[in-house]
């Protein structure tokens, strides 16, 4: 063994390196963060920047080549042409509906899991909620297509009541997306409610509050940031979706489809980029709004 009073720098190369790193905290930090930072800046922010710049280019109508000259034309088209305004509003509406439906389903479920279920039941429920996330998105979307088909499962189930399913279209899209993103709403609310001490509800009851008042004045304010955290997932995932709507949405289009069609069929990359900045802008506005609720600390 080396004598204990021997300075670290005088050992082998590994020891020397360790000693050097120990004395230079900045070197340590840059070694630790260089790879993730490179990824974040180049691949992630770089791609976003490229998208943003490309949104101001145009294409040559005859050759289809990208013309790298600054123009507001894409954004002018987006604002002035009715079809895009409709698609934009429709997408936001779908995202809002999906978020509200998921919130309404997820809250009681999460409350039961966090506050009422036995530890055993709770474990099984968490597994049951996570399992669908392991299945392919496409499989789940096509499963809904089968269920929503004419004379499919939903028509058959509603038949005895003289009703039939919504068929393919926007309602079907909302249903499918609500199903797909439900776990992303349940899990944050569940985590938020787990942090709510049980005896706060006892305390409210003790002070004379009935069940609904206890919910309104104690449970909801404490859980609200968690609900907002869940809504960020469901809202942004719905806003950018273009596959589910293709599978169950009939002829309906969402922002994602416009982007997709402009990359593919129309071969207008700059316009696709311009359209793609819209959901990004909407999400930025949304995040700024929810930042004030403290929800970002719940993510």
């Amino acid at each position, binding site marked *: 063994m080396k004598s204990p009073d021997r300075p670290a720098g005088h050992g082998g190369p590994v020891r020397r390196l360790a000693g050097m790193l120990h004395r230079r905290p900045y070197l340590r930090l840059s070694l630790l963060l260089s790879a993730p930072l490179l990824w974040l800046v180049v691949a992630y922010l770089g791609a976003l920047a490229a998208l943003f710049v490309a949104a101001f280019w145009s294409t040559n109508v005859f050759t289809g080549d990208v013309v790298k000259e600054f123009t507001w034309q894409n954004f002018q088209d987006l604002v002035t042409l009715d079809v895009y305004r409709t698609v934009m509003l429709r997408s936001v509406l779908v995202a809002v509906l999906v978020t509200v439906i998921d919130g309404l389903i997820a809250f009681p479920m999460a409350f039961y899991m966090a506050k009422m279920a036995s530890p055993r039941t709770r474990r099984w429920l968490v597994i049951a909620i996570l399992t669908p996330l392991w299945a392919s998105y496409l499989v789940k979307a096509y499963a809904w297509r089968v269920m929503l088909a004419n004379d499919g499962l939903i028509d058959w189930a509603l038949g005895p009541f003289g009703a039939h399913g919504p068929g393919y279209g926007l309602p079907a899209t909302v249903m499918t997306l609500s199903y797909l993103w439900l776990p992303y709403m349940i899990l944050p609310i569940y985590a938020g409610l787990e942090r709510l001490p049980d*005896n706060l509800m006892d305390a*409210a*009851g003790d*002070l*004379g*509050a009935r069940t609904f008042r206890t919910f309104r*004045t104690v449970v909801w*304010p*404490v859980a609200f940031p968690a609900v907002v955290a869940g809504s960020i997932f469901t809202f942004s995932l719905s806003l950018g979706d273009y596959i589910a709507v293709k599978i169950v949405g009939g002829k309906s289009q969402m922002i994602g489809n416009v982007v997709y069609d402009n990359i593919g069929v129309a071969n207008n990359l700059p316009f696709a980029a311009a359209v793609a900045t819209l959901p990004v802008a909407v999400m930025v506005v949304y995040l700024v709004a929810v930042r004030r609720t403290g929800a970002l600390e719940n993510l």
Partner: protein
Amino acid sequence: MSPPAQRLAVGLRGVRKIFGDVVAVDGVDLDIRDGEFFAMLGPSGSGKTTVLRLIAGFESPTAGTIHLGGDEVSKRPPFERDVNTVFQDYALFPHMNVIANVEYGLKVKRVSKAQRRERAVEALRTVRLEGFEARKPGQLSGGQRQRVALARALVNRPKVLLLDEPLGALDQKLREEMQVELKAIQRQVGITFLFVTHDQEEALTMSDRVAVFNAGRIEQVGTPAEVYERPASAFVAGFVGTSNLIQGEAAESVLGRTGIYSVRPEKIRVDTHLNAEVPVGEHAAAGTVAEVVYAGAATRFVVDLDAGGRLIALQQNLQTSSMDVLKLRDARVRLAWRREHEFAIREDVPPGLVMDGPPTTVG
């Protein structure tokens, strides 16, 4: 036990509570008088907190009835009972500031805004927390939170205030301060206080009467002096104060009687003059000092009796110093006490509960 003429704040009759296959409360009868400061004392798992939760309405009894001020409330939810609770970890609403926490109960009862504020401020003054109205619970110390919890409950002027280990989370110093203060507040507001504790000293110092719980049952109800000086069972003798039992052969040869007897350590005199005459009205037993524990104001002697068994004697250090008393280890001594300080203990307790070894503090 209680004079029938006196008004009752709380009355329990044959209350049982079973969780799954665990019997938490096993047939409790209890009367608490109006305006009393009443302690429920017992080790953890003895059912005292469950009894408190049954009275508050957070649990409903498996069997038996609960009366509050003459009305049966056994089936009523918490919000229809005229009691308020101070929770062990306070259960303050984290998203509301202090004044909103205190006003909560009044707001639920639709007390007007001006009156609400006035009463809340007054309640905060009672617990000496003026000027903290706008703070959030997260910005308060443990002792301050405890006071807010107290104010939040007191402001509703309930018939009975329930306190679940109210001082459990505080440090020793603050705890002693709050003991005195709680007692003063209770005298000032005149509300019945019913509190749960596992700390025998706390129960003895604060309460008018104490119920000692063990394994879901009440072993004894009485004033602190009754419970301490005349424990009804070996369990009470051991849990309230230091267990000091004379039993079996020792009882026969020293006291001339059979049975189990309890003598409190501070009633026993340690005498180094073995052959001095035993004064009239006293009992004496010779033994060897097994251990001497110097504790500042007093010294604890653990003495093995020649007749069998072991007694602990507590002597004030009036004239002696630590050097003097420590020399007495292994010395031959005689223990003497007045006969009126020995009490027969009920023998119908399970043998496992009779603790005849020395307590862990001297072991």
